[in-house]
């Protein structure tokens, strides 16, 4: 059992981090904390992608004249794009929270829901 866990430890770490982020998204009422949770949630997937590129004994994928074992750089390239997407999500989310704060004067979701209860 222990070996089963240790052999795939990168997968376990990604699942645990992901659930921490997901918990924050679901349970926190503060909108900024929700965004933090969302970022953690996304980052866990980045970690999964980065860890699967590892090849035992592999080196940097730059050709240096001799035959060598290289790690797989493709997942890393994909994640560079995904990180940009993640940053954009965070930026848009912060912009929306600023707008919400200007409108309601608070970023606590419960308080906002109380305020808009009688709007249609």
């Amino acid at each position, binding site marked *: 059992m222990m070996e089963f866990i240790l052999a795939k430890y990168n997968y376990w770490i990604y699942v645990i981090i992901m659930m921490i982020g*997901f918990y924050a*998204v679901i349970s926190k009422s503060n*909108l900024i904390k*929700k965004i933090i949770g*969302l970022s953690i*949630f*996304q980052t866990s*997937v980045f970690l*999964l*992608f980065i860890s*699967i590129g590892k090849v035992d004994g592999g080196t940097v994928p730059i050709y240096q004249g001799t035959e060598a074992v290289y790690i797989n750089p493709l*997942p890393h390239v*994909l994640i560079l*794009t*995904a990180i940009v*997407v993640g940053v*954009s*999500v965070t930026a*848009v*989310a912060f*912009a*929306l*929270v600023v*707008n*919400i704060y200007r*409108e*309601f004067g608070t970023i606590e979701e419960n308080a*906002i829901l109380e305020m*808009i209860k009688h*709007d*249609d």
Partner: protein
Amino acid sequence: MTEHFPVLVIIIPLVLALIAPVAGRLNKIYSWAIALLATLFSFITSMLLLHQVMYNGTISYWMGGWEPPWGIEYVLDYLSAFVLVIVTFLAVAVTIFARHSVTNEIDDNKIPAFYGVYLLFIVGLMGMIVTGDIFNLYVFLEISSLTGYALVAMGKRRKAPLAGFRYLVIGTVGATFILLGIGYLYIATGTLNMADLGARLPGLFNSKLVITAFAFFAIGFSIKIALFPLHTWLPDAYTYAPSAVSALMASTGTKVGAYSFIRIIFTVFGVKVFLNQWVSVPYFFLIIASVAMLVGSILAIAQTNIKKMLAYSSVSQIGYIMLGVFLMNPIGLQGGLLHIFNHALMKCALFLSVGCIAYKTGISNINDLKGLGFKKPYAMAAFTIGALSMIGIPLTVGFVSKWYLALGSLENGMWYLIPVIVISSILMLVYFWRVIDNIYFKAGEPNDVAKIPATPASMIIPTIIVAALCLVFGTLAFIPVSITEKAALLLLG
């Protein structure tokens, strides 16, 4: 030149999306003109592409000349060219409509930025349609989602930013699930090209990894297309977005999500993935789709805000599309694809006519529509045609797709799905009749009605055209039917 059309259809609007906000600094009208130019270009190009596909077969464009599966491939076949034409046509119609509607609903200083974001949204949707690479699909999906969140939040009402924020949180979780699905498929096969995945995956259907990947895709796309019970973001987003944005998102946003889901199911995994599993996935989704069709309609009856009513009706329409897809036979799938086309037209007509009423009056309550049938005859006629089409009266597009969905259910021996389709249609009759009753058969306060300003022709004309197309393609149904027939056979190949 023509061989580069598959990429130009995206690149030109993408470049113009960056120019539009800058040009808008000189004069607001420039940013609108650029948006119109970009969408018109895409529409004409996609018509040419559909023509090419019909005569010369599938087009495969290699990005930068790199051969797939190493390079990124853009694929145009019957399905993608068809959906591309729908999306770009509705984008043109909504852009023409947007000129006055947006000036009325959005602050002056935000208008240049609005058109930039608006074009990026369309670019994201078009990219999702033409790409043949699943990671590229994810990137375009995020472009259209991110701009979608911003567009929703630009609404005038105070709840708009909150609706946008909620959509962002749920949408990002969905997109991250899709990214995970892509990662799992990459771990399993080492490729990202859809056609290549389609060739490699059949040998791996016993692998838990591949099945988990499918589960991630299914949940991610169910969030993106607002399939019940993951639809919670949709009603608020459509209700509080500006009129033009509601019309565009309702008619194209979820449809393109459904299209991508169809691509993942049929092109990447293939129907055989569902054989020999411990649970029948298509059957499970048929149940979900049936519940969505009924619950969406029932919730729509309960609404007093007309945009919210239309939004809940979208939830039930997504149920129809997924019903067709998961029947997994050519006729049912054809019904689902036809419903993508038909629902895009009907919902666009409905949301545009609601936008015409809301112009300068802000009317959104069903009870305030009394007596408008004679004050705004064209917008209300368009609404009525859209409503009849949703219910599925013969000679409108709604009838054609429901007919194929019913035939597809019979083909599978699932006769019990037909009462579900009929009951959902009757429920639609209930909530649309309530609106039509108010429009034509109840007199409003004469003073209130007299005060309602006239709607500009630039808003009325696209509304009328889209509504008229609901009738045209309902009568001349052979055009979409013949295209979707080939598309369905291609997918089930």
